[in-house]
């Protein structure tokens, strides 16, 4: 939480930091962290120990409360080739146990990438609204990312026979997620966000396939030499969080992560080199340090104040409305949006009210729609086109008409379609596209809007984000009267097809 800046926190270790230069070389063996017995802090040189002088993450151990999962320090990224670094970073992505709304995907990935979780959440929600890719990506992360406390990913639990048999609930969840991902990815070939979706799905699969093989010496329990969770050390090659987990946690993790001792030989031989430069047979993945349990959120009155002020202002506006003043369309959401925006601006420096972002997003969409919709209803649009086109022959039909903004009405009732197979295409960036077709023509309409509504022959009305409809209508006479193929699109606005009654 951004209010934390003022106070020293048991801050999380910093994965990207090439730490050796900056911190006192607190002996890594001095951290009194809990761990399995029999694996005492004996030396500074077993496998997995970071280079001497590597700083322990600041703030450990925390003064009280549940011990946070111990974060191993990061490897010095500078020594690793860029491609490996990227792969390692991808592999180090985790779902967060603590920083979560649904399954911790955004929280964990944001942490792994070093960005604000709120940003990822907003992107996910927006991608969900515009086409649904957000859901697919979230499901992908949920399925493939392990949890930062050592729990393997759902995919691993399903496919890795060395782990304990997953519960039926886990299986069901994983199957649902896999179906969602499959459907989403298969549909990606005909979507605007398809390339993004495919690229990320591919990256996810690569990470999944490249995930560290289970060590052969799974039986080497938590107490085994060189195994995970040696207290007093920062085992760079062991997974996040295992140090606080019991034996079950450690062994559950062991199924998906490398344990250096399994392949790297006796501790004495492997102690000198940094782990990531170790034997080629044992490429260790730098794990992502888990997030310590988030401190309790600092209470701020700003959110409550802003919401209250918004309600108050809306009440005043409603009173004005009732008293007979003619309010413009969208006055309510615009006023609320203004106050939410002011609250957020204040929150940039004073107090904290980031939850307002979600309310603001909804209000912004409503206000935008009101902004672009109102002028056409009121005929206020001055610079936008306002066309009434009355066509009389098939040859006049545009195949690819483009309008930037405004209102365009095509009247095709006088076009003789009898015995013809005609097609027409039109696109408007912002605004309204209305096509009136003759009574008897057989129409097939493909209509789409980025944001807005589609009304096809009064029978198929839908709206929202990314509307895409196809409809065939033969008219009251059934087949006959010629055919017309309509392809209509509005980026931000309204598409309507009417059938003339006479």
């Amino acid at each position, binding site marked *: 939480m*951004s209010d934390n800046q003022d106070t020293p926190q048991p801050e999380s270790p910093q994965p990207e930091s090439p730490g050796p230069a900056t911190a006192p070389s607190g002996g890594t063996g001095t951290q009194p962290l809990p761990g399995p017995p029999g694996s005492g802090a004996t030396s500074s040189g077993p496998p997995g120990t970071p280079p001497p002088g590597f700083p322990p993450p600041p703030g450990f151990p925390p003064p009280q409360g549940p011990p946070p999962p111990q974060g191993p320090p990061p490897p010095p990224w500078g020594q690793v080739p860029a491609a490996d670094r990227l792969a390692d970073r991808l592999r180090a992505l985790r779902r967060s146990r603590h920083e979560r709304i649904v399954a911790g995907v955004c929280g964990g990935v944001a942490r792994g990438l070093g960005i604000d979780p709120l940003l990822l959440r907003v992107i996910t929600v927006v991608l969900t609204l515009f086409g649904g890719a957000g859901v697919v990506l979230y499901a992908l992360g949920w399925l493939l990312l392990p949890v930062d406390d050592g729990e393997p990913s759902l995919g691993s639990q399903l496919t890795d026979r060395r782990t304990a048999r997953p519960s039926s609930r886990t299986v069901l969840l994983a199957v649902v997620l896999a179906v969602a991902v499959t459907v989403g990815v298969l549909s990606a070939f005909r979507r605007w966000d398809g390339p993004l979706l495919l690229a990320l799905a591919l990256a996810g699969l690569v990470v999944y396939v490249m995930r560290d093989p289970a060590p052969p010496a799974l039986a080497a329990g938590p107490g085994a030499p060189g195994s995970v969770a040696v207290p007093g050390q920062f085992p760079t090659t062991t997974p996040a969080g295992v140090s606080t987990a019991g034996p079950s946690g450690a062994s559950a993790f062991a199924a998906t992560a490398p344990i250096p001792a399994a392949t790297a030989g006796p501790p004495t031989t492997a102690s000198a080199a940094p782990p990531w430069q170790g034997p080629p047979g044992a490429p260790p993945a730098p794990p992502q340090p888990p997030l310590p349990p988030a401190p309790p959120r600092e209470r701020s009155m700003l959110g409550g104040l802003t919401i209250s002020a918004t309600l108050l202002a809306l009440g005043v506006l409603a009173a004005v409305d009732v008293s007979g003043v003619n309010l413009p369309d969208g006055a309510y959401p*615009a006023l609320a949006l*203004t106050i939410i*925006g002011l609250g*957020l601006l204040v929150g*940039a420096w004073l107090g*904290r*009210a980031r939850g307002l*972002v979600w309310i603001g997003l909804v209000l912004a969409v409503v206000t935008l729609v009101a902004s672009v919709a109102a002028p056409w209803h009121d005929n206020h649009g001055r610079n936008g086109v306002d066309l009434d086109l009355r066509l009389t022959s098939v040859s006049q039909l545009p195949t690819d008409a483009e309008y930037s903004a405004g209102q365009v009405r095509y009247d095709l009732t006088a076009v003789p379609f009898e015995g013809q197979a005609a097609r027409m295409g039109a696109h408007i960036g*912002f605004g309204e596209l209305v096509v009136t077709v003759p009574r008897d023509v057989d129409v097939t309409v493909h209509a789409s809007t980025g944001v807005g509504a589609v009304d096809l022959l009064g029978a198929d009305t839908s709206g929202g984000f990314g509307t895409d409809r196809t409809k065939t209508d033969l008219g009251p006479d059934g087949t006959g009267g010629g055919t017309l193929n309509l392809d209509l699109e509005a980026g931000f606005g309204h598409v309507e097809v009417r059938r003339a009654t006479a």
Partner: protein
Amino acid sequence: MWRCVVRRHDTDVMSLVFGLVFLGVAALWALVQSDLLSLPDASVFGPAVLVVAGLIGIAVTLRRGNRGTRDEIRD
């Protein structure tokens, strides 16, 4: 008295940028409704709001430098 209610902290770029975007959308609405802005202009003004908010966010982030950036990560 205000100080007792809310605490001052380093700039929260997320709040700042989204606040600016929302105020920009509200301003867009007000301009369109008052006929100061026609629709083709609005299709320029809208993206301009995003560009300006983004530039301000970048500027604030860069100016703040390393100071406190890690704290931003935890939300």
